[in-house]
Structures are given as C-alpha cells and as structure tokens.
C-alpha cells in the first residue's frame, strides 16, 4: 500500500521535482506556527494569563488554529506520500502522529468545555486546566519528535 502511495502523481511531484518537497516543508512550518501558536495562547489564557480577554472571545481564534491544522494535514500528507515506506518505519514519526492524535482529542474536548461555559467564563475547572497543560506538552512533544525524524 505504501509502495503504491509513493508512486502516485502527487508523491512523485513532492519527491522528485526541484521545489515540491521544500514548498511542502515551508508550508508545514507556517501551519505549525498557526496551530501550536494559537493553541498555546488559548491554553495560557485558560491557565490565567491575559485575563482581560474573555475566554469565550478566544473561540473564533481557536477556529483559526484549525486552519493551521488543515494546512499541516495536507502538507504533511504530501510529504509523507513521497517517502511513505521510510516514514512508517520511523519511530519518531509514529510517536509524532500519536501525539498529534492526542493533541487533537484534547483540543476538541477543551474547546467544547469552554463553549459550554459561555460568557460566564471565570471559573475554569481544574480538569480543563490540567488538560491545557498536558496539551501544551503534547504539542511540544510533537515538535520534538517531528524534528528528530531527520536525525534518528
């Protein structure tokens, strides 16, 4: 299956054209910054930073963080397709995918909790705060394992 994936047109373009791979890598950094950056700001707010901003006012920004996620799902899939057989055997890659899955589940849960609070937002539950800390650690872990794909 992964062998066939490497033979698809998009995989060949990413893997063999001069600019395919670098363009996808560059987009992957922009998506990462939007995703991890905005989620980090959201979680810092949950933990009590810049409390002048209503927690619920952050929700549209969190939507924008998902734009970063889509950019990285698409660019990541393109990068993956070009060397699928190598990636599926890379331990840091597999860890990274696991951490991203965890980060997404946490984010969806936190988002739905905050939506439930509505505008009366000031008492964030301890559970949500703990999840916010864990989520930040998960995204940092995804960055670490992502970078180590090139080294291990």
């Amino acid at each position: 299956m992964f062998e066939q994936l490497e033979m698809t047109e998009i995989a060949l373009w990413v893997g063999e054209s001069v600019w395919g791979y670098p363009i996808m890598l560059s987009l992957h950094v922009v998506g990462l910054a939007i995703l991890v950056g905005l989620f980090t700001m959201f979680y810092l707010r949950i933990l009590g930073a810049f409390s002048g901003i209503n927690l619920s006012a952050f929700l549209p920004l969190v939507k924008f963080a998902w734009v970063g996620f889509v950019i990285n799902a698409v660019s990541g899939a393109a990068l993956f397709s070009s060397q699928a057989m190598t990636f599926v055997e890379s331990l840091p890659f597999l860890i990274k995918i696991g951490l991203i899955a965890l980060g997404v589940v946490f984010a969806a849960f936190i988002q739905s909790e905050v939506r439930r609070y509505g505008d009366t937002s000031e008492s964030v539950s301890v559970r949500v705060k703990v999840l916010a800390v864990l989520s930040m650690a998960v995204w940092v872990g995804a960055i670490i394992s992502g970078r180590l794909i090139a080294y291990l």
Partner: protein
Amino acid sequence: MKQLAKLAESTALHEWMLSTEWLWPWLEITHFFGLSLLLGALLVIDLRMLGFVRQINIKVTHSLLPWVFVGFGLNLVTGVLFFIGDPMRYSINIGFQIKMGLIVLAGLNALWYWWKLHDEMDNWAPDINPPALAKTIAFISLACWTGVLLLGRLIPYVGTG
C-alpha cells in the same frame, strides 16, 4: 557579511556548536517553539487589528506582547548560534539574506505602529473596527513574519546570493 562570518568562525562558540553532539537538533526544536510563540501571539494582536474577533477589547490584545518578545528572544539566541555554527553557509545564502531583510522590515513596521498609532489607540472604543492604517500595518506584519517562516525553512534548498 563575509567579515562577520570569518569572525564567527574564529570564536569558541563556533567550536562548541560543532563539537557538541545533539546540540543542533535541540536548538532547532527551540527555534520551532519560539516561532510558534511569536506567530501565535502576533496572530491574536494582528487579527484583531485587522478587524476580526471584535469581541476582544483591542487594547487588551497588547497583554500578549511579552509572548511575542519571548518567542523572538528564543529565536534570536538560537538563530545567532546557528549562524556562528555554520557562518559560511548562512552568510552567502539568499534565503537567509531575504529572511533577515524581512525581519528588519517587520521591525520598521512595528516602529511605524508605535509612531502613528500607539498613542491614538487610547481613544479607541474596545470594539472598534480599526482604521485603514492599522489594518495595513497589521497586514504587513503578518505578511513579513509568514515570509520569514517560509524562507527560513527554504534556506537548505536555495542557492547563494
């Protein structure tokens, strides 16, 4: 730039960068985290300045500025170390040179904000749709930093300037 590169190569830091195992990837990871903080905080500030998320009081978005500076500081330190570690590669790289130009441009743009808008902002309503000048400055800011991110990742793939 060439003299700067030569100077960097003669430093003890240069030796340290080359001889310390695993240092480079950890600095890269820090650089990625720093750029996330920088862009994340800046997105909140600049998207509001562009007129989005008006439920956020525009003056309060500035409480995110310290995170922009933390991200910038992390990346300044790690970035200088990359340059010292491999100065001959970076100094002649067109991607690196344009990236540095864009960072300077982003700095000048921030000064433009400071000069033209910062004081005026005190009179703005919390839910203001900012004037065209504010939107222009916010747009330039996001465009510059997006360019910085794209070019930074392209450094290994582009040629010499």
